[in-house]
């Protein structure tokens, strides 16, 4: 398919984003939402804690 886009790598596609429709079913109470960073339980995706990152970095350093 001709896209008119001159891909310097010669392969692959431009990125396309797909987002599933969200349905409002339930939400956290305001206090819980503030702690979780979202009021929607289905959107909770916590970052690893700083301590976990430190432990992982220490393990990597031991391997080297």
């Amino acid at each position, binding site marked *: 398919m001709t896209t008119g886009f001159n891909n310097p790598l010669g392969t692959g596609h431009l990125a396309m984003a797909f987002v599933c429709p*969200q349905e*409002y079913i339930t*939400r956290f109470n*305001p*206090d819980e*939402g*503030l702690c979780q960073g*979202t*009021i*929607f339980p289905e959107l909770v995706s916590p970052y690893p804690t700083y301590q976990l990152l430190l432990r992982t970095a220490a393990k990597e350093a031991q391997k080297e």
Partner: protein
Amino acid sequence: MNGFPDREQLLWRIQALSFTAVDLNLYLDTHPWDTRALADYNQISAALAQTRALYEQLYGPMLNFGMSCGGDSWRWVEEPWPWQISTRRA
């Protein structure tokens, strides 16, 4: 205890209600016909307005202009400021 809600507790409550209101606001931007979400938004907004009014009545204005009446004195310059809150919840 004087029977009034603690200042910091009220500030945390306002933060929590504001966060819920803005998250519902974002959802409603893409789902404007979701009547359940809209009803929840209205309920949270009313609770937020009520809590802010209570805070201002007890502890002074939350904003320096436009939203709060000045009263008999210029309470805005009286400490503590609305953003002075402990990092840990009481």
